[in-house]
Each structure stands twice: as structure tokens, then as C-alpha cells.
């Protein structure tokens, strides 16, 4: 496929009179990683929520493989959401079933698309736990018994098990300590390259953006104020706010 996987045109979401995000347009090609950065309240998560269908946008178009997801019927959108899309929440508790074992968590998407062979489901789950560096011996433990970093990796495994095309991540490294963050980022980078995923990653951590993203969008007050290649945006910021953002990072 040569065209973009996802085309967003003039997307707007309002909360009453307030702007959630407005006039957001971009294209995302297969295998590309798009970072969205900005301070708290800049509309990053709102934008991601609209793209994933968690929130209903007020205006604009979201074209996935040329089809407008806003015009799709809900069943079709939900099928997309559990086959071709994946959504990684900031808090793994939002994305995992805490009362269900790690294997069950990874297997849920498989069973949702019709897998009915216990042995196969378990083998796949075990394989995926290995790929996200969780010991296969913990397949029957509940996520409660996992550390924060492991929970986040489990959430990623659960999302990627059906081989999605488009992954949306909302602050996947938030709340993790730096060494765990580094390993998670390594893992993500490897999976993204290996599976050729298109990724939209929302973060306020510029280091994460630098490491993972090919392109960057900077948001402020619900608008995109700057967009471009990651290195270009971070090394030669044009907008005043981006300059402030880049210079705010403590250089160790």
C-alpha cells in the first residue's frame, strides 16, 4: 500500500465552549512513528481519544485506509479496534483486566477474534510474554502481582498479539523509573521495527519522542503549532513555545 494509513483532516473536539483540540491535520504512513508532544492540557490525549474512537469528534475527518471512521457504524469500528488497532493506556490498570491472569489478558484479543483452541492461545500468550521480557513461568499470575513496568509490558503484549497495523500510545512510559523506561523504550523500538507498526505516541517526555518518533507534532492550547521531522523540530525549533519546551529539558 502506497497511500497513508491514516489521514486526519481538520479534526476538532470541543468540551462545551472550551477547545479540546482543533484544526488538527496530518497523515501517517505504514511503519511511521508520529510523536505528539505538548504540555498538560494541550489537547494531546483528547486528540488521541478522538482518533481511537473513545471520544466523538465534533468536526473533521479521520480516514483509515481511505475510509472515514467517524462515519463508520459502531460494530465496524469496534472490529477495527480489536483487530487492526491497538491502544496502550498510560495507566496499565486501564488497559488490563486486573482480575484475569497474564495469559488470559494476552489471550483475550485472540479469543475476541475467534480463537477457540486453548493450547494454541496459551502457546501464543507464552510466546508474547517472552517477547516483552516477562518470564513465561508467570503466565498464570494476575497483573496485580506484577511491577508497574511489567504491567506496562503486559499491556503492550496484550495489544500487539493480534498483529495490529496502527498502535496508539498515551504516555506509555509515564510513572515508570528511568531504567525501566529505557528498557521499555528499547522493547518498543524493536517491536515497531520488527512488525512495521504505524504508531502515534503521545508524550510530554521529549527524550521518549527523540528516541522513538520519526516525526513530531507540537501541540499547545488544542492546536498544532509545529510539525516536522523529530530532529528538525527538537534541534531547530521555530515556534516560540517549542523553543521554550526544548530549553526546559534539563541537560544531564
Amino acid at each position, binding site marked *: 500500500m502506497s497511500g497513508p494509513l491514516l489521514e486526519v483532516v481538520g479534526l476538532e473536539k470541543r468540551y462545551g465552549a472550551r477547545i479540546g483540540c482543533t484544526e488538527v491535520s496530518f497523515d501517517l504512513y505504514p511503519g511511521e512513528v508520529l510523536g505528539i508532544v505538548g504540555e498538560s492540557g494541550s489537547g494531546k490525549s483528547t486528540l488521541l481519544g478522538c482518533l481511537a474512537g473513545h471520544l466523538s469528534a465534533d468536526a473533521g475527518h479521520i480516514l483509515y485506509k481511505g475510509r472515514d471512521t467517524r462515519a463508520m457504524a*459502531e*460494530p465496524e469500528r*469496534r472490529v477495527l479496534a480489536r483487530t487492526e488497532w491497538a491502544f496502550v493506556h498510560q495507566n496499565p490498570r486501564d488497559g488490563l*483486566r486486573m482480575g*484475569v*491472569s497474564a*495469559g*488470559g489478558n494476552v*489471550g*483475550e*484479543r485472540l*479469543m*475476541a*477474534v*475467534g480463537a*477457540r*483452541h*486453548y*493450547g494454541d*492461545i*496459551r502457546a501464543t500468550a507464552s510466546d508474547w510474554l517472552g517477547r516483552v521480557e516477562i518470564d513465561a513461568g508467570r*503466565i*498464570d499470575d494476575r497483573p496485580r502481582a506484577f511491577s508497574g513496568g511489567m504491567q506496562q509490558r503486559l499491556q503492550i503484549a496484550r495489544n500487539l498479539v493480534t498483529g495490529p497495523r496502527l498502535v496508539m500510545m498515551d504516555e506509555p512510559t509515564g510513572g515508570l523509573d528511568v531504567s525501566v523506561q529505557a528498557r521499555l523504550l528499547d522493547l518498543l523500538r524493536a517491536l515497531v521495527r520488527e512488525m512495521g507498526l504505524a504508531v502515534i505516541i503521545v508524550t510530554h517526555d521529549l527524550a521518549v519522542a527523540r528516541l522513538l518518533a520519526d516525526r513530531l507534532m507540537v501541540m499547545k492550547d488544542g492546536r498544532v503549532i509545529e510539525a516536522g521531522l523529530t530532529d528538525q523540530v527538537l534541534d531547530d525549533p521555530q515556534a516560540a513555545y517549542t523553543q521554550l519546551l526544548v530549553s526546559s529539558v534539563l541537560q544531564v
Partner: protein
Amino acid sequence: MSEAYTFAYLDDATKRMIRRALLKALAVPGYQVPFASREMPMPYGWGTGGVQVTAACLTPEDTLKVIDQGADDTTNAVSIRRFFERTAGVAVSEHTAEASVIQTRHRIPEKPLSEGQILVYQVPIPEPLRFLEPRESETRKMHALEEYGLMHVKLYEDIARHGAIATSYAYPVRVEGRYVMDPSPIPKFDNPKLSNNPAIQLFGAGREQRIYALPPYTQVVSLDFEDHPFEPTKAEAACDLCGATESYLDEVIVDDAGGRMFCCSDTDFCASRRDAGHIGRLAPEVVA
């Protein structure tokens, strides 16, 4: 029959409302139809849903049988049977074959049902997905969109933890390849009897205000995995009173020294076998 009551306790408008719900439920097998459940003169959990469905189905010519875990002589069965004797004056029977309406708590009679009979189940929690997904708004959507993967997550967890599907009652079923349904807490031994049954099967949940139904000869499949197929289970024993090996058994502790016996949970089935001369290990004729 007490003259102070409308026939079968409920007023006519209520019965009409329930019958409408029943017709809708029969038209969409396995779909949970909301209905305006009434307060009944018994506590929730004692079969208020089943009683309302029975009241809406009864005609003066009917013969009613009420069973509680298969038994005709336990508190719940006796009080509901007496309730309808007083308020409807219908004939009652303990024999499965004689009854035209059978209200049951958590069993299907051993004797195969026939066309023209109505089996009414008392249902505590009609939503099979309840303990997996607490939001009613979400479970309704899942039913509407046939998103039943979660039901298998429950079975997966069973196998992961116990090595086999440990769910032994209220075992989820799929009706005519469409709706996933909670068959009320009947033992999974009874699940095969749900399918292709010539009788009408009606399910009433009073507290949860839901009615669902299986019309005669409906295909009902118990959910399972390809490599862990559904198995109806019962105690590995014969009835100690009538010697039956094919019926569902209750285990009864008979003394303080760990002594125990098994007997048919279906008392009518057991009694009719004993009348026919079958004798078990601890039958009075043997022990005396």
C-alpha cells in the same frame, strides 16, 4: 382457592405486560427482555421472577409442579406450590409427566419433557457476562454486537487455574448461534437437556427485571474450547435409594462419622423408580 385474589395473584394488566415480554423473549431466543417486575409476597432470591412468569402462564385447567433443586418437598417448592393453590386454585402434582407448567429452581427434571409443557426457571442473575464486565451499558452492547470473546476468557482462566473447565453450574450457552445466555444455576449436567427440548423454557429474573426464553426445539450449545470440550458431570456413583446411574445425584451426609450417601436430586424420578421396583444400596427394604 381464596376469593380475595385475582386468578394467580397478579392483576390482569400485569399479566398482559409479562406475556408481552414472554412473547418477545420467545421471538428472540436467548435475548434478555426487560419487564416491569412487581413486588411479590416473598423475598427476592426466592423465585419472584419465576413466580411472575408462572402466574402469567397459568390457566385454570393447568396442573402445576414446583421443584427446588429437583425436590418437590423442600421449603421453596412447598411454599410456591401452596401460593398458587391458594391464589389460583389450580391442580398440583409431583409427577413430571402430569404437569403442564413446571416451575423449577436450578434443575431440569430427569424425565424428558414433552410438547405442550412449560418449564419456568427462577433466575438470580440473568447476565452471563456480569462478573466479567460490571457495566450493564457495556454488556448490552456486547450482546448487540456479538462480542463474546470475554466469555471464553472466563473458561480460559478456569483451565489455567484448575486444569479443566471448573465451572459446574450456570454454565454459559449460546442459543441458535446468536445470544450467549446464562441457563440459571442449573448443574452443567442439565445443559444438554436445554437443547432441542420439546417443551417451552421460560426464564424469569425478578430482582433484575429480565425475562428470556427458549422456544421448543431450540439449538443450545455449551461454550467450550476445541481441545477442552464441554463435559456434563455428575457424581461417580449410583443413587443409594433407587440405584439409578444416569440421574444427577445429591450427596447427603448421614452421620457424624463421615458417612454419606448419594440420592437422586429429582425426587419424583427417584420415587417412580422405586415404585417400579428398583432398589439402591441403602433403600429401606435393603437396610431393614
